[in-house]
């Protein structure tokens, strides 16, 4: 018999290294001869979209498009250390460092423009589309490329951002171990085949607090990917560990979800900007995965009345639990 059930779960997630450990990101912003701006930072693109989101931030600051930002992060000899691409920290940490470097560059550019345009002050100066101009007299204008041409050395700014956390007391755990936190919730509906122990996810809704969405489509991509990974975690994935040996060491035996296993997911992006974050944006790479697993487990309980305290919930384990329950009922 096929039985359906719904489940919900919610979580909080502390981002960054945490616990008072210096969580530092660094970045350079550098004006290029053609008026584009290069960002140099050690933040890795692992597929999460760092290169894009972290290009959108300086583009916003400098009134440019993402095409005008050259993002360089592949070579340690020319980039400053920006910490690891982990701990859901790059958007917040390196995002802050890049924003600060870009703002510093903007300040310098404006100062140069004031001088070059022979103005009395920077009041009313706008920076947009690769130009700096006076709003009330747009002909008073200089392009970033023109500014670049006047420099003997490339114009370059540097910034460091260090996140704020406080080490916890070793005896009581009191402190401020992470900052900021992000929040998310997930609800799923499952269908359980009580005769074969198979679990199918029928539909799901997934809400993620992002502070501010820098790139909504990429956030959705993270949410969907996190959903799939969580599905694998609670339903499929098992290394088959036996006396320290991994038996399922191939993708034919270590089962991860395929396209056909995925349900329709409704993504809900919740914005509530964080004042210490770049444009209010918090990281989301990890938290997107977390509420999904327990929501599935709660839905299984709602469907068939068994509590699965060990994951993954394979058909074998679930069928056994269902049979056990039937025995007790009878």
């Amino acid at each position, binding site marked *: 018999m096929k039985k359906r059930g719904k489940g919900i779960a919610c979580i909080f997630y502390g981002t960054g290294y945490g616990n008072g450990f210096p969580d530092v990101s660094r970045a350079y912003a550098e004006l290029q001869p053609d008026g584009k701006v290069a960002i140099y930072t050690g933040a890795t693109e692992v597929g999460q979209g760092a290169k894009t989101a972290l290009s959108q931030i300086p583009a916003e600051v400098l009134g440019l498009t993402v095409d005008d930002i050259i993002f360089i992060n592949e070579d340690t000899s020319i980039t400053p250390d920006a910490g690891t691409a982990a701990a859901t920290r790059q958007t917040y940490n390196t995002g802050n460092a890049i924003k600060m470097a870009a703002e510093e560059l903007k300040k310098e550019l404006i100062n140069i423009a004031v001088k070059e345009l022979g103005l009395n002050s920077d009041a009313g100066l706008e920076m947009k589309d690769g130009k700096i101009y006076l709003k009330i007299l747009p002909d008073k204008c200089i392009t970033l490329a023109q500014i670049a041409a006047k420099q003997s050395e490339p114009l370059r700014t540097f910034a460091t951002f260090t996140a704020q956390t406080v080490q916890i007391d070793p005896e009581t755990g009191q402190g401020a171990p992470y900052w900021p936190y992000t929040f998310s919730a997930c609800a799923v509906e499952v269908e359980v085949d009580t005769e074969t122990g198979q679990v199918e996810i029928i539909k799901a809704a997934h809400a993620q607090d992002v502070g501010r969405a820098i790139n909504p489509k990429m956030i959705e*991509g993270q949410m969907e*990917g996190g959903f799939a990974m969580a599905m694998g975690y609670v339903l499929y994935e098992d290394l088959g560990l036996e006396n320290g040996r991994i038996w399922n060491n191939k993708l*034919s035996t270590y089962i991860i*979800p*395929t*396209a056909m296993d*995925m349900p329709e*997911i409704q993504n809900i992006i919740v914005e509530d900007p964080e004042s210490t974050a770049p444009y209010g944006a918090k990281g989301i790479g990890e938290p997107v995965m977390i509420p999904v697993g327990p929501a599935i487990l709660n839905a299984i309980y709602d469907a068939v009345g068994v509590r699965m305290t060990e994951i993954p919930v394979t058909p074998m384990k679930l069928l056994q639990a269902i049979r056990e329950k039937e025995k007790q009922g009878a």
Partner: protein
Amino acid sequence: MKKISLTVNGKLYQVEVEEDMRLLDLLRDKLGFTGVKEGCSEGECGACSVIMDGKLVTSCLIMAFQAEGKEIITIEGLQKEDGTLHPIQQAFLEEGAVQCGFCTPAMVLAAKALLDKNPHPTDEEIKEGISGNLCRCTGYAKIVSSVKKAAEYLNKGGK
């Protein structure tokens, strides 16, 4: 060594292959088509998929000598010489179907093989069409919507 000839992306190649060489090794190591990826070596992840005589196949499960006389399309064969992207590639970009990108070339080819045969697939048919291509990043949703969008582009006669 065995001499074989095959066509890759419209160009004829005559090459000497080792007896125990796979088509994957031939394409990557000898012919330089590194858009063909190796992720599992057992036909499970689909990252090495190419289109051979119109059909999507995993090149890690084919011996090079078996490809004698075959016509093969790899990801390198999709973009036009003037740089125009294939509508599927364009749709993948627009819909955000790419993350780490390692599965992407083969995923695009899986979509092509599907759409060549079935220009109006349902969501379920798309999922089946890409079910031999694992992706660990995207959860597949944006890939499915890209294939839908690509179908629209193609049915309108390209973008």
